[in-house]
């Protein structure tokens, strides 16, 4: 069942989590640029097209909105299957929380909301990937109960 129009209110954290809308995208681009110091509007436009509009039962682009309508954060993920031999599971590939509202529960609300979407999509496992030296997101995901998974990421320089 599609839940594209559903709004999930998380009272304890004083943010409401809902599906992204086209009108949110300028704020999403601005928040990402603030956090990563690298503006990438074309990338986010593409993400909005693929994750904000298509296959809503398995792709989730959610935003957390503060009571004053400011963007508190966003999360993007999807159900993927059979890559690297993995059975279907939910992948979170982007999560950002505005620096001035951190430690107030917006990240947890976003992760809770996408977890619920993943469960509704029929998967019981959620994964993400974090740079080893990115301590803040690592601490956050750990505090949410995430542990090292069964895969190790490998890479090499291409000469």
């Amino acid at each position: 069942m599609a839940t594209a129009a559903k709004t999930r209110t998380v009272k304890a954290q004083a943010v409401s989590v809902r599906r992204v809308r086209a009108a949110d995208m300028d704020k999403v681009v601005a928040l990402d640029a603030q956090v990563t110091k690298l503006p990438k509007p074309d990338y986010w436009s593409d993400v909005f097209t693929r994750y904000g509009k298509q296959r809503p039962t398995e792709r989730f682009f959610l935003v957390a909105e503060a009571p004053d309508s400011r963007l508190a954060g966003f999360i993007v993920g999807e159900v993927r299957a059979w890559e690297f031999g993995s059975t279907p599971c939910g992948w979170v590939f982007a999560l950002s929380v505005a620096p001035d509202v951190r430690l107030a529960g917006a990240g947890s609300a976003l992760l809770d909301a996408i977890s619920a979407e993943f469960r509704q999509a029929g998967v019981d496992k959620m994964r993400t990937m974090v740079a080893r030296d990115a301590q803040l997101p690592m601490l956050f995901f750990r505090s949410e109960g995430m542990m090292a998974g069964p895969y190790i990421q490998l890479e090499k320089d291409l000469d």
Partner: protein
Amino acid sequence: MRLQISTQLAIFAVLELSARAGEQLSVAEIGEKYGVSSHHLAKVMHVMGRAGLVRAVRGAGGGYQFSGNARRITLLDIVQLFEEAGSETNGGGETTPEGRALRQVLAEIDDISRATLGSITVATMGKLVERANGARGKSTAKSATA
């Protein structure tokens, strides 16, 4: 990865104390739970006291209190008080290509260990303990009904 006994005791003591915010526990009480000598544990607590992780409470009913921030102190902060940083190779050959290649592999292992220990706070460990406790409860209930 093998932790020294002192490191393990330090982690256990911090978890024990942080789970009882505002209370104090004696070295004997903590030692009894984990089956270790008060003498050994006292040395561990002294090191942690100097690092500001625990505070000694004097007088009757005295003991130790957790004095760190459970959402900030990580396992790495505790481990580094008792363990040498990084892997070491023994003997010569470190300047050879083989030695450098081996160091590269060991450095990868060290990086992963540091990232893991540095990402798990005392508060997160508390949640893992609760979960392990819940799992143990379920498994005990299961064997009781089997």
